[in-house]
């Protein structure tokens, strides 16, 4: 199981051969504050790396969710829609956003690993 991170504070974790799970990091949920709404992409839609795939909103602000890699959305977290606070309470677990079928593994490999992301956070 490998987890990678983006400079936009998303995590992506390869679950199996067919799909990787995407969510926001602890840092991202902390910076946003209480999440009250998420807008998730349609299942079956294909995105290029860096495209806006969703939105996460707190009382105070809205932030775009960028696609960490190119690929097709194969599943979304319906539970998160009903319970957006999961993005705060369990951002790395039950607060996941969607699953994506990666079309180019090179894009995944190029993302930051855990220590790389921690180093980025130290510069903020």
């Amino acid at each position, binding site marked *: 199981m490998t987890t990678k991170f983006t400079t936009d504070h998303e995590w992506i974790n390869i679950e199996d051969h067919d799909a990787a799970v995407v969510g926001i990091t602890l840092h991202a949920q902390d910076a946003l*504050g*209480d999440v*009250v*709404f998420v*807008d998730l992409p349609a299942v079956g839609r294909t995105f290029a790396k860096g495209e806006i795939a969703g*939105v996460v*909103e*707190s*009382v*105070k602000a*809205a932030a775009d969710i960028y696609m960490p890699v190119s690929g097709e959305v194969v599943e979304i977290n319906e539970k998160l829609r009903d319970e957006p606070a999961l993005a705060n309470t369990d951002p790395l677990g039950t607060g996941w956003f969607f699953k994506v079928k990666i079309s180019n593994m090179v894009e995944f490999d190029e993302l930051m690993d855990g220590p790389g992301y921690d180093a980025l956070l130290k510069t903020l």
Partner: protein
Amino acid sequence: MSADTRPLLHTPLHALHLELGARMVPFAGYAMPVQYPAGILAEHRQCRHEAALFDVSHMGQLLLKGADAAAALETLVPVDVIDLPLNKQRYALFTNAQGGLLDDLMITHREDGLFVIVNAACKDADLQHLRDHIGRRCEIVTMFDRALLALQGPMAVHAIARLSPGIETLTFMTGGFFDVAGMACYVTRSGYTGEDGFEISVAAADADKLARALLAQPEVKPVGLGARDSLRLEAGLCLYGHDIGTTTTPVEAALTWAIQKVRRPGGAREGGYPGADVIGKQLAVGALTKRVGLVGLERAPVREGTVIVDRDGHKLGVVTSGTLAPTVNQAVAMAYLPVDHAIVAHEVYAEVRGKRLPMRVATMPFTPNRYYRG
């Protein structure tokens, strides 16, 4: 982005905010707590259910002294100041020549003068405005270094009465000098949350001690500007620079209740303030647009700047404030709409990320006000 690199000012409670773990943000030139570790939702609920302590020391406090002060101030606001009884407080508006708004403010008639509270972002301009226009008619005393604390919520009265027995006899929009926890304060029973509560003006040197005394009460927790914004929006109260400004008149802003009869056309002291011709005419025949409340039929927050359209996609107006309201648990917003669309229950659409979200025009406040009127 503006290139304002001046260092942020600190309120007298700055050290306390840091000690309480606040997240500080720049606001109107000050470092202010946007939230504490509890978070905006919990802080919002704290104010609706118990008592919330806000630091609003960034706001500008002034005293206008002299026999002519009330008559002088009436030349700048469309409000009855002369007949304001002693220890009564009133909402007012500084108007410009076009009938737009330079600021909104609170005026309280104290024994020692007219106590005026203005918005932080406007206070320097307001002071200049006062000096330019009425500086020769009254003495303008700035008290910008004083602290201002707001204690808001249904339990606020119990908390403050423990520190200042007798203060509970104040009613909404009245004030008086009180010792609170042994410190000399001027207190009004008013606020910006829709709840019962108090605003407490205190010397900077006493502010930290007073805040700690209030926070020591079991009902009271610190609440930041983030929740203050969602609370005031639910209460239907305008935020200057967002919901009202130099291009909105009191009639367009649905603030005609703030203009007493005596200052309206036909009244004993009609007009006589900047923009009186424009505002007087609008009072008689109405304006073309009106500030309304909107409630979303879907959950997505509809934020400031969102375009509102009719069912055919024609632009009607723009949202001036909006969020997912924690108490009503719906998307709520304020917007200016043409008057033929500013009808309660009328359906309009918010353009959010390429979607048209249905919203209904709603009466404000979105949550019932719970002021203590005695």
